């Protein structure tokens, strides 16, 4: 499979994994808050220990849901590493060519990559742990505006559909492209079509929604109930917090 198609395929797969129903009996709003807080800690920390712990916690959370989710976390980490390396490549090239022997900027580049990868992987692990329905339940129970949770719901519902549309359109074009296959060339030709399709679909979805919207009040029925899942996530967040504080108190351990 060409790289571009593989990339799209993997995105669709990740959304599918996210949408598989989880047996999540924890309180989703607490899990979401802990996820955001943990990601915040990792994003603003400079401690190598925090990054490593974040990656380990991500793997452990993924392991709870089997090899499939673990594989997805692995793919997300690899993808993020590659993308971050691309972003920091000017720093690395500059450091190696203009000032060889100077390692400070190389450390900074490594720190940037690690921070991006560990924070994003941790957040992805929290989301995969919660599952699609858990995320939406959490957002609703956090009393966020209904429009916001609906938008997240639409995004999760329609991104895989959109990607599959891309696949079908790519396949239909490739079936009639007899020269050497170059998916990115074909992809550029379907962007306009995709926008138009997206517009019309959104119009139809809006009508479908209006057909069952009789009032603007949406009731939330939630009560807080802490359990095993929340306690595990709480412990993970606490570990990250302690490691982060240790990084502040002992700056020589930072990168």
């Amino acid at each position, binding site marked *: 499979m060409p790289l571009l198609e593989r990339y799209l395929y993997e995105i669709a797969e990740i959304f599918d994994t996210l949408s598989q*129903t989880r047996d999540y009996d924890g309180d989703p709003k607490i899990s979401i808050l802990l996820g955001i807080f943990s990601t915040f800690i990792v994003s603003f920390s400079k401690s190598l220990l925090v990054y490593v712990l974040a990656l380990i916690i991500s793997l452990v959370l993924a392991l709870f849901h089997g090899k499939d989710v673990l594989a997805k976390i692995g793919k997300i980490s690899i993808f993020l590493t590659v993308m971050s390396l691309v972003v920091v490549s000017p720093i690395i090239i500059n450091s190696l060519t203009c000032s060889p022997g100077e390692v400070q900027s190389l450390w900074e580049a490594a720190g940037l990559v690690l921070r991006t990868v560990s924070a994003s992987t941790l957040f992805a692990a929290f989301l995969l742990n919660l599952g699609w329905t858990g995320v939406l339940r959490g957002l609703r129970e956090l009393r966020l505006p209904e429009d916001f949770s609906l938008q997240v*719901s639409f995004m999760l*519902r329609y991104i895989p559909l959109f990607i599959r549309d891309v696949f079908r359109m790519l396949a239909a074009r490739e079936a009639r492209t007899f020269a050497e296959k170059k998916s990115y060339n074909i992809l550029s030709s379907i962007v306009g079509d995709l926008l138009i399709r997206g517009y019309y679909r959104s119009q139809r979805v809006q009508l479908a929604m209006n057909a069952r919207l009789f009032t603007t009040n949406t*009731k939330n029925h939630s009560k807080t109930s802490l359990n095993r899942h929340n306690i595990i996530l709480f412990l993970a967040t606490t570990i990250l917090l302690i490691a982060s504080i240790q990084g502040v108190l002992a700056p020589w351990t930072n990168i």
Partner: protein
Amino acid sequence: MDEYLKLEDVWYSYPNGRQALKGVTLSLKKGTISILLGPNGCGKTTLLLVAAGLLQPQRGQVKVMGKTLTPDKQNLRKHIGIVFQDPDDQLFNPTVYDEIAFAPRQLGYSEEKTKRKIEIVSKTLGIQHLLDRPTHTLSMGEKRKVALASVLVYDPDILLLDEPTANIETKTIAHLLQHLCQAKKQGKAILIATQRSELAQIVADNVHIMENGKITFQGTPTTLAKNPDILQKLEIQPLNQLVDNLTCADTQ
């Protein structure tokens, strides 16, 4: 009140100027199934959207349970359930349960009542095993059943269905028609927009034929059967009649 829905001289044109409905008059009575037949692009879907109060006609009026449906009387729409042609447009919630629960929650039902209603409707349609599934992982037949359940759950008096038999196997079509007949017996007024003229002979009490934004025929299936030229002219007669003279299979 036997006349549940009435469209009186309804005109609708899209913002691009295309005139989709040209003076349509139609009524749906309690406990009847009406079929709206017509070729592609004749305005069937637009008619359903206008009848459901989702598009506002430029001229004419839509009456639901004897009251005129206007943008400020949106509560009248709870009498109407519309099932869209493409279930992917209609099923926008993460799971089947949430999808079916959407309308009852909007109507302010308690979670208990919503759950009870979902149990009843999912049992009726045989989709209890799908309730936890994400909607996009369902087959087309399952999606159609869920779309119907998402409407039946709030018990509307009027059911509008846009091409409900498209892209599904015959077994599922048979189940679907059984459910519609059951809904008819419960007193619902049902309008099915379709290109499959054979449905008219199977389930319809009334047939409306639409052509280029106008209703050109209204009558019973028996009257329609006596005038086969009407369907022939629009080329929407049953497939077995269309291919009557076609023999391309090698029978030797």
